[in-house]
């Protein structure tokens, strides 16, 4: 079971969170067209390894977090708030 260290609430069980996709994709601008939105919404890196992903701490502080997690070992190396670039947080 994942234990995700929420930067606001501390380590919490996976059951309090929900996953919401790859956090490395950026929504294209309004004029970027179908191909760009196709890339944003559908195409996935889907790595076998480290991935930065969105998780919402829905049952806790409701924040959307960026989580650096390994998709094989499930190790979580870093968690950041939505606006931070993902680096290992201090606390």
């Amino acid at each position: 079971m994942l234990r995700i260290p929420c930067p606001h609430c501390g380590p919490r069980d996976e059951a309090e969170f929900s996953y919401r996709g790859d956090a490395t994709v950026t929504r294209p601008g309004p004029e970027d067209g179908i191909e760009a939105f196709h890339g944003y919404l559908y195409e996935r890196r889907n790595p076998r390894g480290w991935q930065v992903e969105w998780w919402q701490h829905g049952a806790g502080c409701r924040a959307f977090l960026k989580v650096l997690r390994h998709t094989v070992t499930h190790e979580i190396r870093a968690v950041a708030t939505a606006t931070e670039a993902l680096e290992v947080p201090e606390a």
Partner: protein
Amino acid sequence: MSQPHRLAAGGHVDRTRRVSFTFDGRRYEGHPGDTLASALLANGVRLVGRSFKYHRPRGIFSAGVEEPNALVELRDGARREPNTRATVVELFDGLAATSQNRRGSLAFDWMAVNGLLAPWLGAGFYYKTFMWPAAYWERVYEPLIRKAAGLGRASGLPDPDRYEAAHAHCDVLVVGAGAAGLAAARAAGATGARVILAEQDALPGGDLLNEPGLEPWRTEALAALAAMPEVTIMPRTTVFGFYDQGVLGAVERVADHLPEPPPHTPRQRSWTIRAREVVLATGAHERLIAFPGNDRPGVMLAGAARSYARRFGVRAGENVALFATHDGAYDAAFALAEAGARIAAIIDPRPDSPAMQRAREAGFAVRAGSVVSATVGGTALRGIELRAAGGSGRGDAVAADLLMISGGWNPAVHLASMSGAALAWDEGLQAFVPGPPAQRERSAGACRGVHGIGAAAADGAAAGRAAAIAAGFAAAPDIALPDAPAPDHRPHPLWEVRGRGKAFVDIQDDVTADDIRLAHREGFSHIEHAKRYTTHAMGTDQGKTGGIVGAAVLAEARGEPLAKVGLPRFRPYTSPIAWGAMAGEGVGAHFQPTRRTSLHAVHEAAGAVWMDAGIWKRPAYYPKREDADAWASVLREARAVRERVGICDVSTLGKIAVEGPDAAIFLDRVYANTFSTLPVGRARYGLMLREDGIVFDDGTTSRIGPDRFFVTTTTAQAGPVMQHLEFHLASVWPELDVSLASITDQWAGIAIAGPKAREVIAGVVSGLDLSNEAFPFMAVADCMAAGVPARLFRISFSGELAYEIAMPAGYAAHVWQAAMAAGAPHGIEPYGMEALGLLRIEKGHVAGSELNGQTTAQDLGLGRMLKKKGDFIGRVLAQRPGLTDPSRPRLVGLRSLDPRRQIRAGCHLLLPGGDGSSQGWITSATQSVVDPGWIGLGLLRDGEARIGSEMLAANPLMGEEVPVKVISPHMHDPENLRVRA
């Protein structure tokens, strides 16, 4: 005399008390502290079951969770538990157990003829036959196989007992309370760390329970642990799985040792344990040796026989032989001799060893350099045959009623392996031990191959201390360790003695060494293939005693080292666990919480029939005595709305407060239509798309202030919409200054609809001019309703003049009653979900069955709502050709040509006289009140063009085909005159 094999003294049973129990209907006695197995042995019961495939007689093989044979149906009636290991069942008064998997009696099982068919029932035989004639599989062959397979019988009755879940946190979790675990817990506890010590047995001690001389150390350790406030000992608690990031699952058997759970006590409790550091001290399982007849009742693991003697005070045999490959097993012979048994022979393939010498000194007949080549007897062992190790053919016969065997020990690496650690081969122990940890975990004692109680305890103490330090605690003084010599557990690598007859590697699933070789011959040489092809190690014991033996036979067949062949992957559960325990208490009526509006009691009092809407309970309708049936109630309620006035609880709609300087901009981006132009005091119907251009949700959103909006969502999508808004604010437009608050629970909602709605509202609401000019359709204002603060909306789902009053939820019942009173002169009636559905279908309003995640705004006739300028979620991808394709099914209305013939949602629409291909389907259907008969909404290819034409509503599932006319979806008041009246 009862219990003829009970020793006069010794062990951990309470001889001052007697416990009576039955096995296969016969009554026996045992003592508290016994397991069912020890009590059966004390009474001389040897034959306890029949094997899976060949129905061979089977006895008690072990003294613990690894038991492959002695599986019984425990208890009866609704509490019957099939496949229960007699070796771990604590005896209680009145216990009833029945042997299983037999046809006829246990002593004479006619399915034992399968043994004669064995040459044709080898591994995987069923894959190669039963193919012709094709139709015979389901009818003949499979039922035969299914009946023959399986082990015990389930009761088929609901389990009367209760289960609980619970959560725990600790600095150090120690699994197993043998010498290693006790020492680990003491050492960790001494640092002040929070420690949990989980032990599956009722008695902590592990192998210490077999060592009377070390009892003082055990009791002292337990007393010391009990004195540490931050140490929790959990007996009868099996740690069943090691999951990611230091989370382990455990099941505590709270009341299994009792006839039934006392009041307010669960049968079992499942624990989710989060540990900073984990010490695994799970001991080891003794392994069998494969030789012909190694499954006969009377053949038993040496450690088990020793445990029956020392821990339970039971002599498992009178005339005993030992077949062992290492010195560690010899203590069993001494233990049985102490217990008064005769040691008939010790058979050991090795030429000599210190233990052999001691055995000779003790006067035992040691047959060095020899092996057991066969067993003799029927349903009980009468003797064994020996021969020289490496030889062949038949050898001497020795009479014996108990053969103790030990091929060495398998460290219980299950949890370490589950935690991600690779396993490493230990050549000396001929066993796999845990490799470097992948999580914050360390193994200690026999589970990593450290044998001998003194050594194991020292290992445990070191591990416990290291774990506590790793968890951030300062080292504490050393603890006292037991002083005990270490026996040598390094076995001679003898896995199999070949000969005539079946040599089992998996006693439970009747897998023989020959089966493994057959699998190899057929190419199933990978350990995982061999396992699956033969079902080796797939039984309830998961190969604890014989798994590695099968792997060794395979390794020999492959000509490769066992280290390379490896073991099948370890998985949860370390021992099978009760379904109820895993489920916890959130079952049945509490499987999911039931959400109720603040008007629940009001509806209850009004006699509502309930229906589920997601997790909500909502009134479906309110039957009256005079209503002939449910439809009569629904039509009556709908008619009240169309003709007079009705009242309805709409509290379940999602409500979100959207506030902030950028609130309007934000709403413009998340809605497909515009909100920034909405004046304060007005509401607007809004449509949200998903990013893929499909309709996500709809609802009315009101502007309460320049920067404040009151957003409503459908009941079903309230949660997803909130998450959708939060996600986009956090990740896509973090620059927007907007805050979101869920206010679904704060505000209850009451709709009042019908030509008389204004009169009713006037009787409830104060402080507002309700005239059509002052408070037109889509107006919103704060007001007082029946003396409480409220917010009035003039919106309509039914197509009538209608209002919704929102008020703080605690006042909803009060306002409802006031509205009922004000409406009484106008004939007000409450209406439920069914009438609500009827009304909106007549009006052509879409709801969940149309907004089903597959439809676009155009499909629903709402294409005009999409704004032409500016970005919004879903705008770009909604333009993909497949979504703008004019041939997509469009929303239409439908009317059954014969008003008496029902049409249903889920019917497909066919062209009369066409090829039977589906042109669309009905999404919602109802009877109409404005124009009696059956009507519906549907999605129909070329829908608009087909208005006025006839189609067939086909429901082949129910054998119905009803002619319908395609009409406009807006069946009632298409000009919206009534809502604006």
